Structures are given as C-alpha cells and as structure tokens.
C-alpha cells in the first residue's frame, strides 16, 4: 500500500532574541512543531533558565503527510497570564526535501519568527532529518512512486523501475 506520510526527526535546537511586549523574555520558553493539514504536533520541554536565548536540543518525531507543503514552528512562553505565543515560522517542505541531497541528509535550518502582528521576533534554530524507509530492490511501484521518485516505463522488466536513482538491495546508504 502507498505510504501516506514521511517520518521526520526534528531537533529543536534553540531560539534567539525572543521578546514579549518588546521586552526580552525571562524564562519558560517552549517550541511546538506542527504539520500542515494535520492535527499532529509535538512540543519541547520548557527551558526554565535560557531567558531570551533558550536552548532545547530536543528531538521530536513527527509524521508529515505526503501532500503537506509546510511545517509550522511556534515558540511560546509561559507567563503569569498563561501561555503566550512569541512567534511562528513557516517551513517549506522544499527546504529539506528534493534537490540532490540524499533523503537521510541532516539539514540545519534557521527561521525568522514573526508575532501575530507580522513583526520580526527572534530566530528559531532546528535540524531536520527524514527517516529513510528500508527500500528493497523488489519494492512495489506504488511504494516507490509515493516517495516522489519518477517512474520508468512499467512495460519494461518487472513492474516500474524508478529512473534516475540507484536501486538498492537492503537499506539506503548513509550520506557519508
């Protein structure tokens, strides 16, 4: 059966220069990663001492639907008035999928956070790695095409053979 999602390992590393009401926050920042068109989200622990420069270094595993075009990272802060959003960043899936780099490549990505008024409010630093499924040489056409590989002529040989990528027996090779 065709895969409907990809598994991402997202490490939320840190954020910089976070402010609430134009003042640097003192503590209790956390970050939430959310997939587009999907109720699924993951949240880091609170950094109780990092202030405006929190560090989480926390790995979150998230399933990203195949049709999703972006992820959202939201940084929030727990205050005496409740949890307040500091800023959000929209991460295009194209920043870590596609191109020449292999699927298991570890991407380090940083994004500008913007508050609800659209003003710049700090930066969030993350790393993203797509967990690569173990491909067998005899994998079915549907499972390969669902990974976004172009398909060859299905009349040639047994079933569809993906063009432009090597066919591996066993797990995909590491990027190094």
């Amino acid at each position, binding site marked *: 059966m065709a895969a409907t999602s990809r598994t991402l390992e997202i490490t939320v*590393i*840190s954020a*910089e*220069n976070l402010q609430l009401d134009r003042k*640097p926050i003192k503590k209790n920042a956390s970050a939430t990663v959310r997939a587009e068109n999907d109720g699924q989200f993951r949240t880091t622990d609170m950094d109780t001492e990092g*202030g*405006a*420069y929190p*560090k989480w*270094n926390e790995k979150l595993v998230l399933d990203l639907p195949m049709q999703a075009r972006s992820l959202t990272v939201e940084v929030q802060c727990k205050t005496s008035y409740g949890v307040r959003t500091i800023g959000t*960043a*929209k991460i*295009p899936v194209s*920043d870590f999928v596609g*191109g*020449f*780099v*292999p699927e298991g*490549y*570890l*991407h*380090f*990505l*940083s*994004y*500008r956070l*913007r508050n609800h008024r659209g003003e710049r409010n700090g*930066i969030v*630093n*993350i*790393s993203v790695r797509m967990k690569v499924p173990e491909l067998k040489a005899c994998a079915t056409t549907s499972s390969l095409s669902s990974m976004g590989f172009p398909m060859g002529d299905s009349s040639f040989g047994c079933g569809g053979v993906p063009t432009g990528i090597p066919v591996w027996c066993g797990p995909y*090779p*590491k*990027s*190094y």
Partner: protein
Amino acid sequence: MGNCFSNDTGGMSAVGGTAGAHGNPYDGPNDAVDLFLRNRGYNGLFSQIELSFAAIDLLDRDVLSKSDPMVVIYTKGRDGGLSELGRTEVVLNSLNPKWITKHNITYHFEVVQTLVFRVYDVDTQFHNVDVKMLRLEEQQFLGEATCALSQIVPKSDRLLTLDLVYREDSESSRSNRHRDRGKLIVHAEESVSSKTTVEMSLRCSDLEYKDLFSKSDPFLIISKLTESGTAIPVCKTEVIKNELKPAWKPIYLNIQQVGSKDSPLIMECFNFNNNGKHDLIGKIQKSLADLEKLHAIGQGENLFLPTTVGHDYQNKILKSQLFVDKFTESVQHTFLDYLAGGCELNFMVAVDFTASNGNPRLPDSLHYIDPSGRPNAYQKAIIDVVEVLQFYDSDKRFPAWGFGARPIDGPVNHCFNLNGSSHYCEVEGIQGIMMAYTSALQNVSLAGPTLFGPVITNAALNASQSVANGGRKYFVLLIITDGVVTDLQETKDALVKASDLPLSILIVGVGGADFKEMEILDADKGERLESSTGRVASRDIVQFVPFRDVQSGEISVVQALLAELPSQFLTYMRSRDVKPIL
C-alpha cells in the same frame, strides 16, 4: 575570552564591564550549527605539529667512520629569507639515522609554510659541544630538502620522503651537485594536546556576602600563568545571581589553551557588579591534573584571599570551597584528522567580467594583462588563494566560471565556463585557470550587471551532487569582483540555501568601489543573512575582503580570507557527525 561556552549576559559582562542588559550571549552571530556544537563542547582550531626526522643513504663524508649527521630546520619567509627553527641531536656514525629530537611548529592553514631542512656532518672535535652552539660553516654540508608543511599534513600517514639536494649557493663543484645525496623522511604528528578537551563542572560552597542587601552574584574566571607570572584569562563561567552555593554550567577547555595538564591555573571567584568593578571573593591556584584529583576524591579546596599585613603579603584561607563535580577528557577530531582521513577541499573560482572593470586592452583596466608578466588584481587573488588550497585538492582540477559578460554570439551570461567549453567547467591547476582567464578576455565582451546568484547556485549544485554521491568533500568558491552586487536579495537567498551544504564562499573585492554593502554578506560584520522567505543562514559561509585593505599591511589578503575556512569546515563536518577515516 577563550573557548568557554557557558556564557550568559552576566558572564559576558563579567570580564568586560557591563554588557547590554539583554545582549546576545555569544560573541558572534548565534549560528544554529555553532550552538549545536558548543553544547557538545567543541572548540576552535588549535594545531601544534611535531616534526620528527629520519634519513636514508646519506653521503659518507668521514674517512675512518661514517658521517655524524644533524638536521637544522628553517622556515622560509615570503622574501625568501630563512629563519632557524631548531636542530636535532647528532647521531654518531650513521648513514641511516633516526633522530630523537622533535620540533614543534604551529600549523597555519591560511599560509604556505615553507620548511627547509639542511643536513650536516658534525666534525668529531665538536661532539661534546651543545648543538645550539655549533657553527654550521665549520660542519660538512650533506644536502638540503624543501617542502611546504601543507604537503605533509593531508597525507594519511603524515610522512613525506624528500630527496636531499645540493644547496644552490654552495661553492662546491657542479659535478657534485647531481650525485645521489640520500633521502630525508619527515613525519608530522599533531600533538595530542591539540585534540584533547576537558569538560568540568565547578561549584562553590560557603561564599562570603559581598552585596549589601542580597547574597553575592558569583562567577569564575580561569587564567593560565605565563612564565613571567602574568595571568592570562582563558575561560569564564556565567554569573549566578544571589547565590552563596553556586553550581555553574560545564566549562570546556582545550588542553593546549592552558599549556598542559600540569600548567598552573588561577581560578578566581568574583562577585559581579554592574559597573564592571567586580569584587574578588577568593581564589585558588591549581593545575588541571590537581582539579582531576579533587574530582576523584570528591573533596573541596579552600579558597584564599591575598591580604597585606604591614609589608608582607599573606594568603587568608577562607571557609569557602571549590568543588569539581565533573571532570572528563575527550579527544576531538581536528581539521588535520579530517584531511588525513580522506576529506578533501575542492576549489572553484568565479571571475567578474562586467564592464565596470574597464577595457581589458587599456592599462587602467582591472583586467589589463601586463606584457611584462606582472599579474593584475584578479590574477594575484587567484594565485594567492590557489597556492594555499591546491595542497588539499588531490586532482587539482578546478571548476572556473565567469559572469557578467556577453559571449561573441549570445546574450549576457551570468555563469559561463571560463575555458570556453559548453560541456565542462574544470581546468588543470593554477596554469589552467590563468590560461582560461586570459583566453576568456579575448572571447567575451564585458557587460553587466553584477549578479552572484547564478554562480553561487552552480557551486551549491556541485556541493549537493557530491553529498548525493557520498563524497567526503568540502567546496570552496572564490568570487573576485570589482563592484557591488546588483542582485543582493537573490544572492542572500542563494547563500542562505547554501549554508546547509559543504561549501564556503570567499569574496575578494578589487578596484576602488565602495564595498560597504558587500560586508552585509559576511556575517562577521553584522546580522545573519536572511532570505526573502524568512529562512536564515544556519552558519556563516562567507568571507569578504577588499583587496586594497590588506595589500600593504601585515596580513595578506589570502590569510584574511582563509583564516576562517578550517572552522567553517569543522562546523559542517562535526555537526553532521562525519568522522574521519583514520
């Protein structure tokens, strides 16, 4: 302030007076990757190289016995002058000596460090004289060899065998010159202290009150003692507010930073004051070896306070104690480990052919080819950079592009192959680049505008294809330009994307343009680059230098450009946990 990565704003203030109330706690841009590594205790680049020597088949200059050889090591300056680094011991009666004396030299990636080795047969009458006192003109010359340090360090075995030749300025007969004079074997080993990092967690107990209405705000400064007794700060902790039993975040020290594990360190505990006049709470003097023992036995050490009683200086022992809760040593892979372990630097060059350079046929043009052979600014920049980088690129085939020109039969092209080929962009060595450059000047007409986007994208494509093929390569693109970039936002977009690839970009500005805007691209000088979509560069991959700035100064353009390259390389490799194959 050394390589201590547990700063916060207070800690920044700790040594330099008051920092801005909410300043960035790190000295430079807080790169995602840099922070990721700092949290794991990775430090900067320290490389002490230990040279050792052996020889085979030396000339026998003694009548009744074999030669008694000694090696004298020199470094060659840019002017060709030699300065002596040191001498080995004399090995008696041997034509195949292995010398025991090692010589240390600091490795500078950004400089071609030319070494000259001269082998002498020491006369019997001087065998009891200290080698430093020997007059070389009284000894018999056996031969000399020359190499660059960067020829040895990338080799997997770090060994280089050199033919010993006759000195050109020697008065000896020419017939002697071509005789086989044996071989010198040079081995370069990176000292272990260059690679060893200590992680320590420190805390204090029973500190004294130094503030009127609250407890103290303590932080530590760790300094090394020089031979003259001067204390040089190497590390500091963060400030912990209102606490008499502080436990600081772990600190990281490279052993070479402090000299050795037995070098004395002064550890001073201060009470932080906003005005920068911090009160000394107490101090101790311990080496890293002592601190390791304290950790092993789980005991604290009392701080003391220097006091004066009359004319005497005395140490008042305090109730306050310092504890070492954690002490671990780890060996990091260094830049040289990666080179020896099969990683390569691949060099690429892009030359600005826009009309603002002036007509290449006129002497006032930046592209003017001087019939006397004196290189123009473009040629000089290429030669200086490639001279350093070529040692780290095994095939010495370099992609070379031009931008901003109109080929004879087409529209303006912002990334064309310098060699004129439509199929491949690589040229062979420095000569290949020079020939392609001069022939391109004949075959294109200068145009404009100045766009960097296409060449950066092309370089990034090379880097990403290498990653896809499992290559262990790091790419370096040199862009030489005379003008301010026209497509600033597109360039930023391309650079932000490329910051996640094994790529660094060196930009040299030639001519008299105002390059203020170019410095925006170099994150050393300001904020991190941001793309039009809100993505920010995950690390600094750009080094910009205006050619004229450093032409007459002490530091060459190349040194200014290349100085950051090893740390950019390490940041990339370490963050991805790429290990050298050793």
